[in-house]
């Protein structure tokens, strides 16, 4: 069930991210051309690029949680069972940052309704929203990983017992 939901969430993250990254590339390229050859100011271009950039970073970081891609220091690469137990603990610890991202990210987003971007004059809340949204997705993905790792640890332990 959770896995199905998460497949969908991941797909949404990647598709939206792909669109934003494409827009980002086009805007930056367009700005170079327009500034150098057409001499028209594109004051809003940087701001659009930053909004796209920040959203893609947080969406990407959420997807990376699902695939355990965030860099971890590997002190004992061969101790699979120990590492798995630590990973399960780490998932729980990670929830503190995720909690702050969701709850306080949300109140920061609300603060963002009274802070406006210079050129586009839109509230920065729309950019800030990337943080709680990403936090929410990270929550889904972390719970999924937590369940998976526990199952893995169980099957490892069973195997050991069986082998003995």
């Amino acid at each position, binding site marked *: 069930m959770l896995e199905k939901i998460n497949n969908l969430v991941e797909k949404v993250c990647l598709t939206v991210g792909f669109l934003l990254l494409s827009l980002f590339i086009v805007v930056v390229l367009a700005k170079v051309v327009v500034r150098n050859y057409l001499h028209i100011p594109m004051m809003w271009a940087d701001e659009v690029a930053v909004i796209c*950039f920040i959203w893609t970073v947080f969406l990407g970081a959420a997807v990376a949680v699902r695939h355990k891609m965030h860099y971890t220091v590997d002190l004992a690469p061969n101790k699979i069972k120990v590492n798995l137990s630590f990973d399960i603990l780490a998932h729980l610890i990670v929830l503190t940052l995720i909690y702050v991202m969701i709850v306080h*990210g949300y109140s920061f987003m609300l603060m963002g309704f009274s802070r406006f971007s210079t050129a586009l004059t839109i509230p920065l809340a729309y950019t800030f929203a990337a943080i709680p949204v990403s936090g929410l997705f990270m929550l889904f993905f972390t719970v999924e990983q937590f369940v998976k790792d526990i199952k893995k640890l169980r099957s490892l332990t069973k195997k050991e017992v069986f082998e003995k």
Partner: protein
Amino acid sequence: MNPLVLLLIVFFVLVFIRVPIAFALGISSIVTIIYLDLPFTSVINQIYTGIDNFTLLAVPFFLLLGGLMNDGGITERLLQFSRVIVGHIRGGLAHINVFVSMIMAGLSGSAAADTAAIGPVLIPAMKKEKYDAGFSVAITACSSTLGVIIPPSIMMVVYGAMAQVSIGKLFLAGIVPGILIAFGQMGYTYYMARKYDYPSYPKATVKEATISFGKAIPTLLLPIIIIGGISAGMFTATEAAAIAVFYALVLMFFYRTLKVKDLPKLLKNTMVQYSLPMFAVACAGIMGWLIGYLHAPELVANFITSITTSSTGIFLLIVLFLLIIGTFLSPLEAIIIFLPILTKLGEIAALDPVHLGIITCLVLACGMVTPPYGICLLIATQIGKISTVRAFISIVPILTITLGIILIGVFFPDLFLFLPNLLMPDA
């Protein structure tokens, strides 16, 4: 307890129990913020501020460029070209390894991407030709760090953006040490090849050389577009990177190694790739802010000046300090967190900001091949299927050469700085 001590202890404990570095940065800051009774929303404000920076917009482009290099068969062309140039020297494959990394470094801004692109091809090939496995992994990992030393470099982009130092000047300052380090590594390779009688390739014919050179030329133009464009001031770092991506895309459609339908997958992969360092940068933003908030720069400055007040002495202590933190943090995180301390010390020692910047980047690049957290070392050992300890034993002599070159740069600033001062003669 001093909140700074609390911050660092919690961080290290979290890292050792396998909490991902980015989260450990954030969570140790959260613990300190609870201890100091500050509002949590500050955490979010500083996460946001950490990556709200126009200059960081160059990072996706430099990583995308790396991705294009891998997918587009460009690596293959560059390997051919390198073989023609250095393959005939004793220890040919290892020389190719260093040489191709040097060229790739001029195309990509990251070192991990280089290890991931070259490693799977060359490490198995070297092992097959009876090179020592430790040496194979070591030379691959070490030569990959050229990726962030020779421009363009994501690390220098971040340093320049945060320290308000010209990115163009930092890029230019990386060229001489990059080439010196590459030569140092090839010298060491030659010594090892002699000692263990490693094989070489037959010398290429003129015809072979011309063909492979012709095939490589369009790619070799890329570094010139990037570095030329930035140092001539035609574009900002971000724009140069964008143009290079555009050029590479056109090139690849032309080579027919990339189709439009491959683009979504490539962009999605790139997004997740750059979100990793950028999310870490965002989280490092909180810790960096706490360090400023708790007056750490002044404390460290007082401590250091109580040991020595000589400019060189301070500089050497900075190098030592960076060497230590570089083993636990990635270069980007180290820069974000400790930059206020570095610039404070740089002011006291009256160091040229570009000089401080380039030495900082070089020392932090060393941390990419040292345990426990050297990203290039980790990737290379996984490919070579050996333990980090074994790889590190082979890395030590190579790293020593690099450190020697860095120290020469500390004492003779002009060696690294004459290029930026010549081509971008400001300040």
